[in-house]
């Protein structure tokens, strides 16, 4: 299987280079990139699937670098990730066949090259089994995706890209520290040496916490999530589908690999599991609450990635807790939940991003306020987006529900035999998950309803047209995948549970009897397939009855909406901001966290700025910008919550200003008068001579 994947890597590199070379001939370059990418994706998909059912294959060449050789490991977990990324890549390339037509002048060759390289580097990160090469491909992945984020060079995308690269690099540095802490203990950079070495508890905890926050920054966990809604929407839609569906999963993959694989020998701590669960719960709630305040379709979906990463972390957290507390069945169900939701999220988030891309392609704008009524013009996109929304809101028969069901069973099962403190933690997690579920329903009603339903609120929405065939095909494939993963849970769950078993080196947990999914510890069953059949039957019966009645009495259609006697007009339609405003009345405190953090950041930077400001050049207070007259539409929008970019992450802006203030303060040391420079040298000499006396 590994050879297949390596072949696909070669394939995508060749396709990338070829598309870069022929970037002048736009159409040719695009087709080469897309077809080559799809071929490579197909190959690695087969390779990944194959690896699920095989034992781990390990290959090691005396690599170019003298100090460590180039080792790759394909175990079931890696196979799962590669398969997910390959599926998304295939669909993204298929989508790109017509979506990239808009990108001809911004350099289709560059996109083709970097996107192929991006997918190849993701696969290589998953396969790498050596600290140095893992770090190289991890950073390469951030670099290539950075280029894709800033591809259309608007001011917003450049700023988002900048923030993204810095956060990715901070995460990278933490992971590097964690790996090198382990390397210094084992004396080699090979993961194989890490696995066999039983680390001292101190080093193990240090390595885990560093790796957790390092990979968490990549996955967009709460403390490090501010870059995600700035960076993902800026990339082309199929790239942001690939990033939200695939790349942030590498963060989760990293956490699982470090915890279960590298630190496996000495066993984990219960504290690790609690940390992951708490961060997961907080991420899921904050992610969905901030998503509700969004007006831009893609940044709304980006915030939802933060939420779903939180849910995956809940599952993984239960897995780590179970593994550390010595309850293998709990660890198995926790990991099963985490990995299953990882796959599901990749599918429905990819679908939703492609849907948002189609809306952008058709109307030219992502702002929900001016859209509306696209369902009639774009039926296929509307249906796919609806199924995606149902899946992400975890509505029963679909895949979102199945993985959240397993997460619930894991959490409640863990609470059944946890001690006092643990029960409170799990209760907190269950409540957080429930609130997230309810808010997700609200958010996606808003997203789907305001964008696709009611009447078009602008001429852009009116002249919307259905997207060309390849984009429709891509969305349909993902929709079918969502439905299949939901209804076919009885066949998919055992495979995922065997992967979990292979990670924990225990027998796979039996989770399926016939068509129903069984959770042994919480003595409960659910069967998406049967439920889907029952729902279909009952709903069909009701619909038939209602239509029969309509047949008799007839159905008229009245062009105007009933507005309690008044003449209905467009301004009456609900806007995303009204939903946001409603939520803010109840979820006020959670929003207060974000604005509080931002205000604190600004206050800190002003304080430091004044402290470092040279007395003479006190910058005059910037004159308040005169408020541009707000149109009625805009006013409505500001009534609720200002869209994300208005209160861009002020915290990161204040950090930037603090850094430049420090630079300015240091700069004053270079006053230009070279005589003072000589005094500096003498001063240094005196300092070090004094040091000698101190030392002796």
């Amino acid at each position, binding site marked *: 299987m590994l050879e297949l994947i390596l072949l696909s890597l070669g394939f995508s590199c060749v396709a990338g280079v070829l598309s870069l070379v022929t970037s002048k001939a736009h159409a040719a370059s695009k087709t080469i990139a897309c077809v080559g990418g799809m071929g490579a994706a197909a190959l690695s998909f087969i390779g990944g699937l194959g690896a699920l059912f095989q034992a781990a294959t390990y290959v090691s060449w005396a690599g170019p670098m003298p100090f460590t050789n180039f080792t790759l490991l394909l175990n079931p977990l890696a196979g799962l990730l590669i398969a997910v990324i390959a599926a998304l890549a295939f669909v993204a390339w298929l989508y790109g066949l017509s979506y990239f037509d808009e990108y001809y002048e911004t350099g289709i060759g560059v996109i083709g090259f970097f996107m192929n390289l991006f997918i190849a580097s993701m696969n290589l990160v998953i396969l790498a089994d050596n600290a140095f090469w893992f770090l190289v491909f991890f950073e390469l992945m951030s670099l290539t995706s950075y280029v894709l984020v800033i591809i259309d060079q608007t001011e917003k995308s450049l700023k988002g890209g900048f923030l993204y690269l810095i956060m990715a690099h901070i995460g990278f540095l933490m992971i590097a520290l964690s790996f090198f802490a382990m390397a210094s203990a084992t004396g080699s950079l090979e993961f194989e040496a890490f696995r066999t070495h039983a680390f001292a508890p101190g080093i193990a905890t240090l390595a885990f916490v560093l790796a957790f926050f390092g990979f968490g920054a990549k996955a967009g966990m709460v403390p490090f999530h501010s870059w995600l809604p700035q960076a993902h929407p800026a990339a082309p839609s199929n790239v942001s589908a690939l990033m939200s569906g695939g790349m942030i999963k590498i963060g989760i993959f990293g956490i699982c690999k470090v915890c279960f694989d590298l630190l496996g020998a000495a066993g984990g701590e219960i504290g690790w599991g609690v940390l992951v669960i708490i961060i997961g719960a907080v991420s899921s709630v904050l992610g969905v609450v901030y998503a509700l305040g969004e007006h831009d379709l893609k940044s709304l979906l980006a915030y939802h990635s933060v939420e779903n990463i939180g849910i995956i972390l809940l599952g993984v957290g239960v897995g780590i807790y179970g593994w550390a507390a010595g309850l293998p069945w709990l660890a198995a169900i926790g990991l099963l939940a985490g990995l299953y939701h990882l796959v599901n999220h990749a599918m429905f988030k990819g679908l939703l991003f492609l849907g948002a891309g189609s809306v952008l392609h058709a109307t030219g704008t992502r702002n929900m306020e001016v859209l509306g*009524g696209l*369902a*009639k013009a774009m039926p296929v996109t509307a249906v796919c987006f*609806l199924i995606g929304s*149902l899946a992400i809101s975890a*509505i*029963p028969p679909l895949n979102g*529900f199945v993985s959240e069901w397993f997460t*619930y*069973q894991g959490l*409640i099962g863990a609470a*059944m035999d946890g001690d006092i403190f643990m029960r*409170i933690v799990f209760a907190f997690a*269950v*409540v957080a*998950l*429930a609130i997230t*579920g*309810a*808010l997700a*329903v*609200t958010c*996606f*009603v808003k997203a*789907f309803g*305001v964008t696709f*339903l*009611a*009447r078009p609120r602008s001429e852009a929405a009116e002249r919307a047209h259905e997207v060309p065939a390849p984009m429709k095909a891509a969305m349909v494939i993902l929709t079918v995948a969502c439905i299949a993963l939901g209804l076919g849970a009885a066949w998919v769950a055992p495979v995922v549970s065997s992967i979990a078993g292979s990670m924990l080196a225990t027998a796979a947990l039996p989770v399926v009897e016939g068509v129903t999914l069984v959770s042994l510890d*919480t*003595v409960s*069953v*659910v*069967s998406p397939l*049967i*439920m889907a059949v029952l*729902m279909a039957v*009952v709903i069909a019966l*009701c619909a038939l*009855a*209602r239509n029969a*009645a*309509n047949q008799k*009495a*007839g*159905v*008229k259609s*009245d*062009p105007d*909406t*009933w*507005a*309690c006697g008044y003449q*209905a007009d467009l301004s*009456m*339609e*609900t806007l995303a901001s*009204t939903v946001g405003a*409603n939520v803010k009345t*109840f979820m006020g405190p959670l929003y207060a966290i974000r604005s509080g953090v931002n205000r604190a950041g600004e206050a800190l930077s002003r304080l430091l700025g004044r402290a470092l400001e040279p007395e003479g050049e006190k910058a005059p207070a910037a004159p308040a910008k005169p408020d541009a007259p707000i149109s009625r539409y805009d006013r409505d929008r500001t009534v609720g919550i200002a869209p994300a970019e208005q209160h861009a992450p002020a915290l990161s802006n204040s950090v930037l200003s603090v850094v430049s203030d420090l630079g300015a303060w240091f700069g004053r040391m270079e006053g230009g008068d070279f005589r003072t420079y000589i005094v500096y040298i003498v001063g240094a000499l005196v300092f070090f001579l004094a040091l000698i006396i101190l030392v002796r």
Partner: protein
Amino acid sequence: MTIIIAILQAILLVAIAPLLSGITRKIRAKMHARTGTSIFQDYYDLAKLWKRCEVKEGGSSIVSRLAPPIFLGSFILLAAGLPLVMQACPVPILGDIITVLYLMALPRFMFALAAIDSAGSYTAIGGVRELLVGVLVEPSLILVLFVMAVAAGSTNVGVMALSVANLSAYPFVAVVVAGVACAMACYIEMGKLPFDLAEAEQEIQEGPLAAYSGPSLAMMKLGVSLKQLVVASLFVAIFVPFGAAATAAPLELLIGLAVYLGKVLVVFLIASVIENAVMRVRYKFLGRYTWFVVGIASLSLVFLVIGI
């Protein structure tokens, strides 16, 4: 065998739902010292609407057409799944609390979508408020069910009912407090007066019904009253399971049925008495009441954790 019981149970609940809402209207009228309509008034309304010609609004799409059947259908499914007549769930796969909770989310999803689809601001605000009530009630409901799951050792409603029935649910006080919290949460979910007047279409929260007419409106009204009944019987099934049939013997089933009907009647009686004794609370302050219910639910969690 249990499948038949499930189907019968579903049909029974659909049948008696309008009756119970008729009874509550009768009680309200009596408390207002007026004679009020007959308890079968709902049946007459539904029959009349069923024959009427339906008007489809201009902007609305397929979603508005699909909303009523999905709304009613999912509640019928919920009704079939609950252990009302028997102590064990007639259809085990519908019995898991997570499935129940997330299955209740589907009608809310379609209800709100239909509201937005009708392009009217009046109906849309009603739909959005319906969603937000769901958001506010969710934490207390899940906390209660979490406490019961840990107490009963399973997340299946049937097993919970069984353990409460034979008093084997371990931290007894936690279960009682959870029952109180569940009662209040279900009361809010049923859309009774202090929070919302379910029957009145003019009421904002039921605003979306304004967009419907004819058979669709009939189906939606039936769905709303069935929702009240299902929520009430969820509470009854878990916390007042006494008297439900232990085995599938026909005699036991009949007794179970009678006992269940009695219990539901008592619950509706209490609910309508409470309903008429209080004033309508402003939508903005709904949050305070729900946080209060969450407080009680977390109290039950504390008891569970301490283990009394």
